[in-house]
């Protein structure tokens, strides 16, 4: 039981971090996108995590402590747009200002590194569990 549960937990951690990295890559790729289908410049997307309690019959002691993780919500950040004066730009408004996306490259890169560190941590936990399960099979040998 414990290793199937653990695989589910680490699996959820891995995919949640991966989604976060997708969101970050989307932000980085669109750092200068000034027009989007819904109008206006690209809005930076943020993803939050939420814990996902596992149902299966645990001891009451453990119940609250064993949680998988899932994507909470993906929201747009609505502030922090920069305006640049550039009348020649195709997306300039009537005053000649272009609104640039509120994506800060430094911030995104830091987030990317954090997310990949978290991804690695989950992968290590996965390896540890697999190793433990394999080792347990040596009991009889």
């Amino acid at each position, binding site marked *: *039981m414990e290793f*199937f549960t653990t695989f589910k937990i680490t699996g959820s951690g891995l995919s949640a971090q991966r989604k976060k990295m997708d969101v970050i890559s989307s932000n980085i790729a669109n750092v200068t996108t000034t027009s989007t289908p819904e109008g206006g410049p690209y809005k930076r997307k943020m993803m939050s995590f939420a814990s996902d309690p596992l149902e299966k*019959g645990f001891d009451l002691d453990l119940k609250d402590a064993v949680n998988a993780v899932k994507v909470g919500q993906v929201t747009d950040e609505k502030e922090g747009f920069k305006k640049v004066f550039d009348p020649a730009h195709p997306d300039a408004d009537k005053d000649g200002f272009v609104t640039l996306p509120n994506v800060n490259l430094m911030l995104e890169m830091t987030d990317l590194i954090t997310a990949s560190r978290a991804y690695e941590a989950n992968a290590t936990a996965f390896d540890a569990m697999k190793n433990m399960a394999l080792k*347990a099979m040596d*009991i*009889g040998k």
Partner: protein
Amino acid sequence: MTDDFLIRSSVDPLKPLTGIEPKKAEGDKSTEGVSFGSVLKDAITDINKLQNDADKAIAKVQLEDAGSIHDAMIALEKAGISFQVMMQVRNKILDAYQEVMRMSV
């Protein structure tokens, strides 16, 4: 059949040798303590129980996803060892029996 007789430990020299007799009922238990036969029976029941426990642990891991690997491994190992103990005991009993049969009367 080897568990059905007790060898008389004291023989009265004036009486003719009566040889080996089949085990009597409860009366003999009190003088000899627990009889060998009941020990064997208990052992077999124990081994059966251990084998069943091992089967249950295996079913738990495979089917219900509720057990743990090490429980199943430990249960299997215990059942296996008990069985081996039984086999060794059986071998010893057979050897002892054959020894006895070889004794010239």
